């Protein structure tokens, strides 16, 4: 599973992307955030306040309840500020 991070979430995690093998217990996007927070201080810091974390599954916006299933990539990022 490919994980991507953007903006200050990328800065806190310390890398723009990584390949991670997810355990079977991680079924939803919310599960994944919960699991990542335990991987280390940098993740705990990045996902400190899950309310301001947005996610996309295969480049489509999703909420924390979304099932990961067979997605190829998951991206995490703060609220968007383009335009």
């Amino acid at each position, binding site marked *: 599973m490919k994980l991507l991070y*953007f*903006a*200050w979430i990328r800065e806190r995690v310390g890398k723009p992307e990584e390949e991670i093998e997810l355990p079977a217990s991680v079924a939803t996007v919310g599960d994944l955030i919960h699991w990542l927070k335990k991987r280390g201080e940098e993740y705990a810091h990045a996902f400190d306040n899950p309310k301001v974390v947005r996610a996309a599954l295969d*480049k489509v916006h999703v909420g924390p309840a979304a099932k990961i299933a067979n997605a190829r990539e998951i*991206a995490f*990022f703060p*609220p*968007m500020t*383009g*335009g």
Partner: protein
Amino acid sequence: MSVRITEAPIDVAAETAALAHAGSNTGALVTFTGICRREEDGVPIAALVLEHYAGMAEAEIERHVEEAQKRWPLLGVRIVHRVGRIKPGETIVFVATASAHREPAFAAAEFLMDYLKTRAPFWKKVERADGTHWVAAKKTDDAAAARWKKPREAAE
């Protein structure tokens, strides 16, 4: 329809001209140009750094252009979003809509800008002499985007 993300400066005159002659019956052309401001809270801005999610950004903008085309009788839409380091006075984003009449051209341009602000995966970082910081999302932008929701979506 043309959607482009670029690291090069945006030529507003060329982009506008390209759309003015898009439809044989264009009577109204609305453009929005977002420009890097020179200061923020009285402090000079050195530059804006625009980050984006390549692949998703284009797809997300194109989805909203298609939605705009369903809602209004548009003869052309042109969107260019710049990424990378942008200096004060330079163009960040350009949105242009063409229609036979002014109402759909204005409505579609506002719709597209509201969605670009809140749904397109771009993030702005401000570089100032006194430090750098990520721009915080504005609640007024969420409210502006919400006014376009259809009844079904509004309940979400």
